């Protein structure tokens, strides 16, 4: 994963609440077995609506509960492939938020009036190190889990980080009293 420090630039606005991942990337595009090439299908059906205007800027500002529904990581893949580097919203669905942090697409939670101010300003800077978003006429701080922030700033490989604790995993497995399901016995 590439490291993220600052995302700066124009803001694309999608002023809708409860945008689900079926809209972000419809099911017919989930049949690919690669991680790349989803950007051109982003908001595939909505993009056909008259007046649709969502240029591939570094920042997307949107409504509450963004990314609800299906756990498909194809949704953050599509947003990132399209060109977004940060998404600012009043709230995110849990799995979507987590998926974004795994691929280096920065999810930023701001208060609803602050998101509206970013939408109105049209340009913003997201500073992950300082946990601040600034725009012409305003700025706001945002919360992020310290460990997630560290991984994003350093661009760390999650699995590599966990495998540093492989002895703890070995010990846990050795200690366990319960025997688990043996899925291999079913074949």
């Amino acid at each position, binding site marked *: 994963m590439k490291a993220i420090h600052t995302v700066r630039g124009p803001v694309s606005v999608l002023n*809708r*609440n*409860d945008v*689900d991942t*079926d*809209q972000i990337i*419809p*099911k*017919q595009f*989930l*049949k*690919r*077995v*690669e*991680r790349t090439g989803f950007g051109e299908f982003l908001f595939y*059906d909505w993009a056909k609506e008259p007046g649709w205007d969502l240029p591939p800027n570094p920042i997307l500002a949107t409504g*509450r*509960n963004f990314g*609800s*529904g*299906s*756990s*498909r*990581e194809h949704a*953050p893949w599509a947003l990132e492939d399209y060109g977004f580097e940060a998404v600012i919203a009043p*709230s*995110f*669905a*849990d*799995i979507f938020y*987590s*998926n974004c942090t*795994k*691929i280096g697409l920065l999810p930023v939670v701001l208060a609803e009036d602050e998101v509206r101010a970013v939408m109105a300003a049209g340009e913003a800077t997201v500073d992950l190190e300082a946990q601040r978003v600034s725009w012409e006429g305003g700025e706001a701080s945002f919360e992020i*889990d310290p*460990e997630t922030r560290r991984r994003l700033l350093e661009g760390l490989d*999650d*699995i590599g*980080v*966990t*495998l540093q*604790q*492989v002895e*703890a*995993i070995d010990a*846990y*497995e050795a*200690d*366990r*009293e*319960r*025997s*688990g*399901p*043996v*899925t*291999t*016995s*079913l*074949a």
Partner: protein
Amino acid sequence: MPKTLNGERPAGASPRSLFDKIWEAHEVAESLLYIDLHLVHEVTSPQAFESLRLAGRPVRRPDRTLATADHNVPTDGSTAAAQIRDQLSRVQVETLERNCREFGVPAHSIGSAHQGIVHVIGPELGVTQPGMTIVCGDSHTSTHGAFGALGFGIGTSEVEHVLATQTLQQRKPKAMRVRYEGELGYGVTAKDLILGTIGRIGVAGGVGHVIEYAGPAIEGLSMEGRMTVCNMTIEGGGRAGMIAPDDTTFEWVAGRDAAPDPLPLDDWRALRTDDGATFDTEVVIDAGELSPQVTWGTTPGMVTDVTAAVPEPRDEGEQRALAYMALVAGTPIQDIQVDRVFIGSCTNSRIGDLREAAEVVRGRRVASSVDAMVVPGSQQVKAQAEAEGLDEVFRAAGFDWRSAGCSMCLGMNPDIAAPGERVASTSNRNFEGRQGRGARSHLVSPKMAAAAAVEGRFVDIRGWE
């Protein structure tokens, strides 16, 4: 110190919730959670296996991993990936089969007698057990919480992480309890209970939380009903749904292929929320007040009683939803005519669901204007239903009796509703385009879907003859 579910705790230790107990028993280190069971399907796993291959990493515990093909499989009775006509779907299923062979993961792909929707086969094979942590690259993994397990959906990067390490880096979510007072009325089902709950808490009401469902209305549900409730937790924004296991659970699990023998009942009976345990959020709902539910919009929270009318839109989102659904505020729900009926999905495709629907259609005919289908959740459910003659009941009524898969819940296979078609569906999502581009979905219980198939419109199952 062994990590047991009811291990030694000092006298006076603070009371814990069911969720606390499972979480603490699975902490390998701070924020590193051990995963007991990892379910895998063809759509969200290929990129994870590919990354493992590139990094030269093996699957740590194939014996705690189970794969099936469900999202893409045609329901026409095909028995091998090679028979799948859609080239991309075929490649995806073949890729799963190849990956599982290469990494030693047991797979029940198309053609297996154990194939089916991942959240149907886990419980029915007995690999889903109380007290476990269970993940899958699928948001409806919350289903498994019906057994007193902690089950939640993850993305593909996390699928790869679990394959490689059998753990997940997770901050502990907040805890919510939804407690139901009273009993469900006649004709009101688990599906109505959860739809009514989502209507009350909203589609983001559970965000950041693991939700425990409790109360007599929950205790009175069958395992199928409990799975329906926990399944749709994600539709209320919740990370996982849980129900404390009891005799209903133990009887259901006993004797299944992968179930322990004897069952570790002392451990399992300890999987209860202690008196005095606290929750970050508590919700109380009167179950006795609930009627059969029908969604009218494009989120599962846009739902109302079958006796009600399409509501006045309160904001732009609801206006947009009504326009998409081609509905006018004030229209009685029972005046809404349907073109299609879909009985299936990980929400409502188990044998109990099919029995309920079959009871409604027995001796009746599907309206001539309606195209109706039943898609059993697994090959085992299909075989059981056929042994009971339910397939004949459905066929005689004019239903199309299909083979197992996710099917028209999301239309990744050829089972897709046409633009503008209105579907009464037992699935979990009425999002725009979910069942087909431009298709209009109404979520209902299996009984309500069956009655809608016969009448060609929604009816209140409670007073319907």
